[in-house]
C-alpha cells in the first residue's frame, strides 16, 4: 500500500464555520421541501377517517390540481397579481427615489412618508385599507371622487376589482421599500460620470435613461428578485380584505395552499402546491442569477 501525499490539505476550518448554517438550511429548508415532495405523491386527508393513512397515488395530486378549473383560476390570479404588483412597485420605487434624492430641507420627512408603509405589519396595513376602501365615505373612494372617478366603489366585493384592490395595497406597501434600495444605489453613483455628461450637453432625460438607469441595473435585478418572491409569499392582506373572494376571485397560490392544508385538510394536495411553489421560485431565482452573472462577466 503506497501512501500518496495529498496535494491539497483539507482545511477543516471553513467547513466547520459553515456547519451550523448548513445544518439549519438542511433542517428548515431542504428537509421540509423533500418531505413535501414525498407527501405530494400520496393521498392523505386528515378529515376523512379512511384517508388519514397515506396511500401512494403517483402524480394523482398534480393531475387533480391541474384538471381543477379553480386551481387554473388560482394560477391566473397569481400571475395577474405578480404582473400587477412587481413592475409598478419597482417603477414607483425608482421614481420615489429620484424624487427624494436631493438636498432639500425636510427631505427626511418625504423619505419617511414614502417608506413608512413598509414598517407597518401587512395585517395593519390591510385593516387600514379596509376602511379606505369603504364605499361612500372611504378615503380611497373620496380621493378618487375628487379626481372625477364615478365607477364602482365596492372595491373588495366586486369580482372585477377584488384582485386589483389587494394589488393596490401591495403596491402601496412595497414601493417605499424598493425606493430605499434605489436611493442607496443613487447615492453611490460616481459624480464624474454626470459631470462628463453635463459637459457633453446631455439633457436630463438622456442622463436618466443612458446613465442613471443602466448604472442601477444590479439594484434593479436585486429588487426584481425580492419583489417577485414577495409577490408570491404575501397573503395576509388577502385574509383581511377579501378572504380570497368574492367567488375565489382573489385567491392566489399561497392562499390556496393554506386553504388546502388547513381548511380542506388535504395534505397531499397542499404538498403538491408547495412543490409547485418551490419549483417556480427556484427556476426564477436560478435564471435570474445566471443571467445577471453572465452580463457581469
Amino acid at each position, binding site marked *: 500500500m503506497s501512501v500518496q501525499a495529498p496535494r491539497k490539505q483539507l482545511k477543516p476550518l471553513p467547513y466547520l464555520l459553515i456547519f451550523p448554517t448548513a445544518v439549519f438550511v438542511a433542517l428548515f429548508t431542504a428537509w421540509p421541501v423533500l418531505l413535501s415532495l414525498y407527501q405530494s405523491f400520496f393521498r392523505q*386527508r*386528515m*378529515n376523512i377517517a379512511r384517508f388519514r393513512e397515506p396511500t401512494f397515488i403517483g402524480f394523482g395530486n398534480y393531475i387533480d390540481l391541474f384538471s381543477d378549473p379553480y386551481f387554473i383560476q388560482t394560477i391566473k390570479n397569481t400571475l395577474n397579481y405578480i404582473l400587477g404588483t412587481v413592475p409598478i412597485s419597482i417603477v414607483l420605487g425608482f421614481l420615489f427615489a429620484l424624487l427624494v434624492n436631493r438636498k432639500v430641507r425636510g427631505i427626511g420627512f418625504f423619505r419617511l412618508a414614502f417608506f413608512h408603509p413598509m414598517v407597518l405589519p401587512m395585517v395593519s396595513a390591510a385593516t387600514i385599507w379596509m376602511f379606505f376602501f*369603504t364605499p361612500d365615505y372611504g378615503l380611497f373612494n373620496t380621493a378618487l371622487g375628487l379626481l372625477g372617478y364615478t365607477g364602482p366603489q*365596492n372595491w373588495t366585493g*366586486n369580482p372585477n376589482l377584488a384582485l386589483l384592490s389587494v394589488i393596490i395595497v401591495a403596491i402601496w406597501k412595497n414601493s417605499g421599500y424598493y425606493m430605499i434600495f434605489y436611493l442607496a444605489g443613487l447615492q453611490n453613483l460616481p459624480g464624474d460620470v454626470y459631470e462628463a455628461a453635463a459637459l457633453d450637453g446631455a439633457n436630463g432625460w438622456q442622463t436618466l435613461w443612458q446613465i442613471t438607469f443602466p448604472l442601477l441595473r444590479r439594484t434593479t435585478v436585486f429588487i426584481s428578485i425580492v419583489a417577485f418572491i414577495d409577490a408570491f409569499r404575501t397573503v395576509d392582506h388577502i385574509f383581511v380584505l*377579501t*378572504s380570497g373572494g368574492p*367567488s375565489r376571485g382573489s385567491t392566489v397560490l399561497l392562499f390556496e395552499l393554506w386553504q388546502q392544508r388547513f381548511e380542506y*385538510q388535504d395534505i397531499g394536495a397542499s404538498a403538491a402546491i408547495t412543490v409547485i411553489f418551490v419549483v417556480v421560485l427556484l427556476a426564477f431565482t436560478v435564471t435570474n442569477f445566471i443571467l445577471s452573472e453572465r452580463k457581469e462577466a
Partner: protein
Amino acid sequence: MRNKKILLVVLTFLLVGSVVGFSTTAIAQEEEPVTIQVFYPVAVDAPIAEILNGYIDDFQAEYPYITVEPVFSGGYADVQTAIQTTIDGGGEPPAVAVLLATALYDLINADYIAPLDGYIADMEDGEAYVEDFLPAFLANSYYDDQLWSIPFQRSAVVLYYNADMFAAAGLEPPTSWESWAEAAQALTVTEGDTTNWGMHFSSDWPYWLFQPLAIGAGQNILEDDCTVVFDDPAVIEAVQFLIDLSGEYGAMPAGVQASWGTDTTDLASGATAMIAHSSGSLAGLLAQSDFELGVMPYPGKEEGTYASVPGGGNFYIMKGAAPEKQDAAWKFIEFLSRPEYVADYSINTGYIANRYSAYETDAMVTYVEEVPQALATRDALEFSGAELATQNLGQVRGIFHDYIQRAINGEMAAAEAMAAAQVEADAALADFCP
C-alpha cells in the same frame, strides 16, 4: 415582650400552616400536581384574556393541584391550525381548546378530540347538567350518540335596528320579509352624494348571516352532516330576497359587501338603519350608539315568523393529552359552566349566557333589567335552526360562498348558482359519506 412577639408569630404560622395543610389535603386528597394548557381565540371586542385569567385564579384556588396555562392563539382558525400543527408534528396538544362548534366533524375525523360521555356519567346529575344548556347551543355537540363538546362562548345571528329611526318614520319593527323590505326602503335616504341605507348585510363570508334567511323561508341549507340543501326552492327564494333588497327595493348597497368590520360603526353613526350581525356585537354597539338600539331575530318570509342561527365556540378535550390532564380539563370546563361564571362571561363579553340557570343569578337578573337587549339575543334562538356543520366543512362552505357570491354579484341567477353549488357540494361530500 420581644419573646412574646416571636412566640405569637410562630404560633400564627403554625396555625395558618396547619389550616392550609389540612384544607389542601382535604380537597386534593392524594392528587398529583398537573398542569394543563387551554388554547383559546379572541373573536370579539372584549378583554377575553383578562377575564379568563380571573376565572383561572378562582379555579386554581379551588383545585390547588391543577395549574392552568391559558394560551391565546389568534382567531378560531389560528387555534385550530396551532393544534393541527402540534399534533401532526408529534407534540402533545393542549388538554382543552375553544374551537368553533361547527368544527366537530373535522375534529372527530382527524381523531383529535375525546368524547365526554364518561365525565357526564360520572357526575352526580349529569343529565341535569347537560339539559341546563340552551338546546340550540348543543346542536353541534353530538355525533354517533356521543357528546363531544360543551358550549362556551356562543352567539346568534340577529337583526339590529335603530329604533329611533323607525319611530321617526312611523314604522314598527318588521314582522315579515315584506315589512322588512318596506321598512328598509322607507329608511333609505339619499341627500346629495351620500346615501343613508335602510339595510347593511355583509357578504364576504356569507353563509352564517344568510342561514336565517333560508330558515325563514322554510328550508335550512343543511339536513345533516352528509346532506346539504342548496337548490331547494325556498333557499333560492331566500337568495333572491337578499338580492332584491338591493336590486328591487334599492334599500341596500348592491353586490358582495366586505363590510363585517364597518357595519356596526355604520349603524352606530346612522349611516344605516339596520344591520345583520352577531349577537356578540351587542356590547360594542350599545357603547357606541346614542339612540335606542333594537335587537330581534330576522323576520321570516311569512307574517309573524322569525329566524336565527347560533354560532361561536365550544370546549373540546383533546384526545392526545395525557389522561390525568384530560380529567383536569374536564374539571375546568365544569367549573366554567357554573351559572355564576356563565352569567359573568356573558355580561363582560356580550356572548349569550348558554345555560338556563345563568339567567336566574342575581348578576344576570340585574344586568337584563339594565340591558333588556341581552334577553332579546337569547330569545332569538327560539327561532333558530342548526348552523352549517358538515363533513368536509371547509370545502362545502367554500362552494356555498363561491356560488352565493356569484348570485349576489349578478354573475349568475340565484337558481342557477344554487343548483351548481348543490352539484359541487354533493361531489365534495361523496368521499365522506359513502
